[in-house]
């Protein structure tokens, strides 16, 4: 009996030691997995060049020289290697221009960002300037947490003429703008050229229509002996801006004149059915297969929809994958995609002039050129869309072109995103009928909207 106990104890001991050892070895893969999703992170080696080009704030109105007393600003944003480098360099550039300004930049993981920002702002210990999701802006402004951008730095007229209109709609209140748009994102298609070649497809030609997308995805999917996917033709994770783009291409309006969600419509049903059947019927992807990003990076995913800013990320994280970037396939001549964005805002307690000067330095044409070239991010200033420097890289140009047929994303609030996530899972894991899921989605979205309006 005692001997037997010892044998069991020994085996359990070894099992536990192995598990603990695994814990020690794991940080690297884990950190790359968690925040993987939609953020650009092009190589940080590009940053040294940027420091010598640190921009001046928009020259005509920026009263940088009128800041004659010392001002300290703390700036927060969610982390991304390439972006962090640019922001830090821009801050250093501004501090060199005016020694009275001190800027401390702090970056935090996307997953923790909102949960740190909100309580800090409520407690009055938050940053002076920060990045906020466009969908959250209205609430912050209504509750008096933010102050408007100083008109001496960016006049209202400049906002309306210079920036993409879709990125401004959530930022205006009582004739004033409370944020400067940044992190503008549409949806584009990334494809792996080598896998295309293996499947007998033209490696330089992405699918141009829904029909081609479906056909290519099926051809590119491979299954193992047990029938499980070993190579996914198209990573369809149900990410709401992707599914919303399908809906827009079917002509869906998504909201009525009063702002109420109307997603239980034939147009949305057509899009939702097509998108979900790629998984349930055509079996080009399965949620139990690796994440669509991991699949693409490791050459196990042939196509994936993503934000243009994923370009910089893929260059850095998938150096061995030869990939192309294309506009999303069209449906009935429509290539519309959803635009999502963030904006830089100013906390109510900050020095408005200095904060506005700093945010302008972060978002003026010179700064946004850096953002675009180094991260693939779409500039929020329209003038840059024709910039030869930015359009030099054809893959960056695709991102810029995608904004030309884009609509303001209607689901840029985390609660709406959660509703769509669960609805998608019901479709692809429970095989529920899209019509029934959409009926529930409409109810849930409007219930969430009602809660937001009541606050």
């Amino acid at each position, binding site marked *: 009996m005692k001997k037997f106990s010892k044998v069991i*104890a020994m085996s359990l001991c070894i099992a536990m030691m192995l598990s603990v050892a695994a*814990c020690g070895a794991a940080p690297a893969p884990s950190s790359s997995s968690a925040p993987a999703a939609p953020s650009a992170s092009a190589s940080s080696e590009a940053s040294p060049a940027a420091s010598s080009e640190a921009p001046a704030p928009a020259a005509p109105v920026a009263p940088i020289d009128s800041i004659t007393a010392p001002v300290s600003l703390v700036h927060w944003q969610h982390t991304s290697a390439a972006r962090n480098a640019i922001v830090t360099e821009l801050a250093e550039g501004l501090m060199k221009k005016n020694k009275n300004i001190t800027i401390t930049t702090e970056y935090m993981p996307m997953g923790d960002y909102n949960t740190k920002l909100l309580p800090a702002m409520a407690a009055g210990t938050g940053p002076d300037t920060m990045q906020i999701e466009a969908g959250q802006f209205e609430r912050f402004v209504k509750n008096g947490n933010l102050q408007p951008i100083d008109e001496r730095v960016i006049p209202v007229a400049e906002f309306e003429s210079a920036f993409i209109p879709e990125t401004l709609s959530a930022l205006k209140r009582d004739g004033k703008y409370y944020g400067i748009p940044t992190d503008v994102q549409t949806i584009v298609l990334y494809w792996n050229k080598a896998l295309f070649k293996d499947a007998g497809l033209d490696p330089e030609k992405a699918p141009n229509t829904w029909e081609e997308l479906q056909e290519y995805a099926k051809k590119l999917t491979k299954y193992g002996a047990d029938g499980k996917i070993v190579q996914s033709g198209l990573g369809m994770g149900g990410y709401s801006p992707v599914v919303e783009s399908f809906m827009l291409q079917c002509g869906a309006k998504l909201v009525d004149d009063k702002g109420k969600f109307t997603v239980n419509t034939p147009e949305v049903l057509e899009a939702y059915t097509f998108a979900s059947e790629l998984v349930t019927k055509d079996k080009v992807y399965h949620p139990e297969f690796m994440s669509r990003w991991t699949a693409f990076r490791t050459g196990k995913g042939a196509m994936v929809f993503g934000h243009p800013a994923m370009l910089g990320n893929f260059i850095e994280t998938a150096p061995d994958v030869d990939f192309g970037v294309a506009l999303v396939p069209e449906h009935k001549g429509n290539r519309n995609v959803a635009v999502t964005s963030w904006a830089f805002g100013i906390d109510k307690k900050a020095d408005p002039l200095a904060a506005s000067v700093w945010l302008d330095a972060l978002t003026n044409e010179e700064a946004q050129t850096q953002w675009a070239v180094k991260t693939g991010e779409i500039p929020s200033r329209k003038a840059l869309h024709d910039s030869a420097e930015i359009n030099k890289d054809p893959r960056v140009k695709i991102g810029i072109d995608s904004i030309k047929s884009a609509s303001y994303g209607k689901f840029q609030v985390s609660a709406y995103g959660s509703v769509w996530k669960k609805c998608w899972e019901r479709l692809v894991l429970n095989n529920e009928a899209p019509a029934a899921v959409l009926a529930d989605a409409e109810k849930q979205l409007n219930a*969430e909207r009602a809660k937001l309006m009541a606050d």
Partner: protein
Amino acid sequence: MLSSKNRNKLIPYLFVGPAILYFASVTLIPALMALPISFTNWSITNPKPRFVGFSNYQLLFQDPMFFETTWNTICMASYIPLVLALGLLLALLVNAKSFGNVIYRVTFYAPVVTSTIAAAIVFEWLYDPSFGLLNSILGAFGISGIGWVKDPNTSLMSVILFKLWKGAGAIMIIYLAGLQDIPTELYESAALDGASNTKAFFRITLPLLRPQHIYLLMTQTIGLFMIFQETYILDGPLDSTKTIVNYIYTEGFKNMRMGYASAMSMILFVLVLVLAVAQKKIVKLDTV
């Protein structure tokens, strides 16, 4: 000037004072604050919350997600007998006074002191259906892998397995302390009377570990209703691993509905209180 007698009376309070202050400021006061907040529409960013009466509570009882996450939490109760059994088994195995037992004890206890988040992230990789270690091992034996956390049918089980790995060591230590308090004479007498090992275990060991059973049952039940980190990382589809505390967190910090989240916290508090009182009655704690 305090007399020597009074000074002696004061000294213990000085020792426990900092701990009480810390507990009050980061636990007690915030917990009490949740009650008034639950009657408002406070959203963190809103500096002037409005009194909304019982509407958060009314909303809560119409919210299917509240019931779904409460049910998920209750389903995790199957973890309690499993972890108690595993902890007791480990304690019995390492109780023998033989060379090497210290190493076993340290090894079994190591997961307890490992960061839950870090360990859960590792398990997320071990569980991965495509390239995870567990499915690779199953595959080596010709067994088709399962979806683990990514399958709503097995996600809760995956979380429970992780919790067993993480929590059994702590249970083992408590039981081990109890086992070492049992006089060896009792086993010797039983052996003389012809009792088998099994009989001795059921007639001597288990009954004499009663205080440990009671303590562990109560703390594990209360702990069950506070599961958060494990399910935050091992997040199954269709909210299959979302517990009530995860939902409170989502509503409070992601959706910025502190009033509603506080109302849920109050209900959770009542639920735990009722369970604790019921347990106390059932096991007749007064005899311990």
